[in-house]
């Protein structure tokens, strides 16, 4: 059974997280303070850590840094402030992803699962990433959409590869720019245009991206086709808005 450690000082939040995770077959441990969290992370070796940023004793960012100093365990941050700067900083410090309160359990589960899968892949070397109709073979570098092979330029592939190897998790603009252009040249404008070109090849409707989704002010995420949106308020009616749209020009590749 997958073990998840919840570090949060709010009893009500812990209670619903426990219920939500247990409902989906996780074993849940709770810690009320940063110190207790660090202890539990060391002794109980959880598979996934949910870390709140506002802790009474230690700053969440410090807990994150300490855990990262000895462990690669997937960590998802819970943050109440929608401060993009802070999110980017935490991702840089080694958080796998974040959710902003208020959030729904499916959103958190999706992030947690994506982080777990990525963690496993780094040990199992599972080469193929799937997201909706898209499949990316990270080893043979073959990209196909609904079974048909898609031709990508090298930069487009590098972008998709970076997103695919973190499938379901956010990658910051800076991480992507570094992956694609290395230390020289790249900037956010280039990245935006490259993303647009890639979307024209892999999205059904490039003006309504379902696979490569933007995390405002932070980065991009390859959505694995889960309907969980970035906002918890939306997920009760799992009504994909795409159905309400006029499906635009389908790009034949």
């Amino acid at each position, binding site marked *: 059974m997958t073990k998840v450690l919840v570090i949060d000082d709010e009893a009500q939040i812990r209670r619903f997280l426990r219920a939500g995770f247990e409902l989906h077959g996780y074993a849940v441990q709770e810690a009320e303070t940063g110190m207790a969290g660090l202890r539990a992370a060391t002794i109980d070796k959880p598979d996934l850590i949910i870390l709140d940023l506002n802790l009474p004793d230690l700053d969440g960012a410090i807990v994150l840094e300490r855990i990262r100093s000895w462990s690669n365990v997937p960590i998802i941050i819970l943050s109440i402030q929608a401060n993009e700067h802070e999110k980017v900083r935490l991702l840089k410090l080694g958080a796998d992803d974040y959710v902003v309160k*208020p959030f729904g359990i499916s959103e958190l589960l999706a992030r947690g699962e994506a982080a777990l899968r990525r963690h496993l892949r780094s040990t199992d070397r599972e080469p193929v990433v799937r997201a909706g109709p898209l499949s990316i073979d990270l080893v043979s570098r073959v990209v196909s959409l609904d079974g048909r092979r898609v031709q990508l330029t090298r930069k487009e592939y590098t972008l998709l590869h970076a997103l695919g190897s973190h499938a379901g998790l956010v990658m910051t603009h800076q991480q992507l720019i570094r992956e694609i252009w290395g230390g020289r040249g790249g900037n956010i*404008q*280039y990245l*935006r245009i490259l993303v*647009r070109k890639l979307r024209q090849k892999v999205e059904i409707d490039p003006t309504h991206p379902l696979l490569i989704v933007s995390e405002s002010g932070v980065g991009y995420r390859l959505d694995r086709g889960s309907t969980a*949106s970035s906002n918890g308020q*939306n997920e009760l009616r799992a009504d994909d808005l795409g159905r309400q749209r006029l499906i635009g020009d389908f790009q034949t590749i």
Partner: protein
Amino acid sequence: MSTFQRRNRLREQAADSSKNDFVSPRARHENRPQNRLAAGAIPIAAALTLVGLATAGLFVINSFVPLNLIPLFYMLPVVVAATRWGIAPGLVAALAGAAAADFFFYPPLYSFWLDNRQDVIDLLLYLLVAIVASNLAARLKTAADTSNRREREITELHAFSQGLATCLTSRDLIFAVQDYLSNTLKYRAVLIASAPDDYGLDAGHTGVPEAVRQEAVKLMTASASRASTIIAPVTTKAWLVRTIVPEILGYGAIAIELGRGSSDAIAIIAHHVEAVLDEAMVTLKHLKVKEAIEQATINYQTEILRDALIGGVSHELRTPLASILGSCSVLDQTAAIRGDRGSHSLVAAISDQAAQLDRQIRDVLDAARISANGVRPRLVWTDPTDIIDSAVKQKARRLASHQVVIELRPDLPLVNVDSVLVEQALGQLLENAAKYSPAGTVIRIDSRCEEGYVELSVTDQGSGLTTDEKKQLGRRCYRGERNLAVSGSGLGLWIASTFIAANGGSLHAESRGPGLGATVSLQLPTGSENTPELADAFND
């Protein structure tokens, strides 16, 4: 220039002006044409009287002791007249003295004829000495007068400075200047404010010639010069018009009536007044700094309070809401709730209401933050497609009962904006569209690209806008009267337009009328994204 230096300059000017026969304001006022004649005649008559008295005295003394030094005796009225009334009465006394000595005391008596050559030389010598003496005496008098006046002016200026020091607001100060010029220097000073309430004054002062007022307006609007002297056409009186440091005080000017006089004299007076105003402006700047410091202290304290409030509210209110929303999301997945339609819809209702409450709290917090710190956008090149997509996703639940149609051009240029703020603003437009149009109707999102900007618009088929509502739209806390039944704080659109404005864009509303739907659009600035190196960036 420091206050001290300015004060010194002021003193020099006072001394300077006396050298140049500075007409003291009081004296100047007395110099009306009819008065001037009388003022000149009195000292001369007095000088002649003195000579008469001297003659009478000489007759008396001469009857007892015959005198040889008669001209010497006549020096007395000359010196007295020159020291008291200046050089002209002194000279008159000298001439009259010579004439009287000749007539009454030199043989032949009672005739202006002189028998003795020695007497002629005596009298000529007397005249020479008298002229020199009266000149010296008159200069002495001028010097004494100057030092008196200087002392008086310094005392007055000192009193003025002290008066300035007690001013607590810039308004007090302006009045102190006006008071000083009017009461102490006897000039008429009038404040001309660009807006009546700038100094709490009525701009329509009576008795200020239209030409002067126009000059003031000209100076207030032009930044080049700050003072000028003009002659009012009808009264031919000179006026000095001087702006009052526009960067500190808003726009205002002070007009000072200098009266008639030679252009030199007016220039000197203008200089003097200018110095007084400079002095006042220095104080004014200090005062402004003091006021600014006090204001900053108050702002700082308010800010601490507000931050505490914002922090407290966001934690104390939003954390319980987060657990309500989270718990709902878990409940909604349990078999018991899923199997029961009634329970399911109840959970959905709780979740909806909690989400709405959370949104409203966020609006209030946003509004408080905007008021406290303004908006500081972090501009990043962004694809408008992403902005629309995120905004629509954010509002998916609000839009669920409407039909959303998105018409996007695939080649929209990038926009340089803070995407988070613009998304929130666009989300607000979508939310309003959903709120004010019936379920099942279409909400359209269109994009348009123009030179220099991208326009995103949201069109609904709802209650539309009246002309009045269109005008009021975007005002803080404005809510249309027709829609008071729809819940809301009236903050949303205000926040949206503030966010858009902070991004260098603008927000417009159009409606063909009530019931005919509305289109609200955002214009966002674009740049030249086709930089030469852009092509290179994609070479493999």
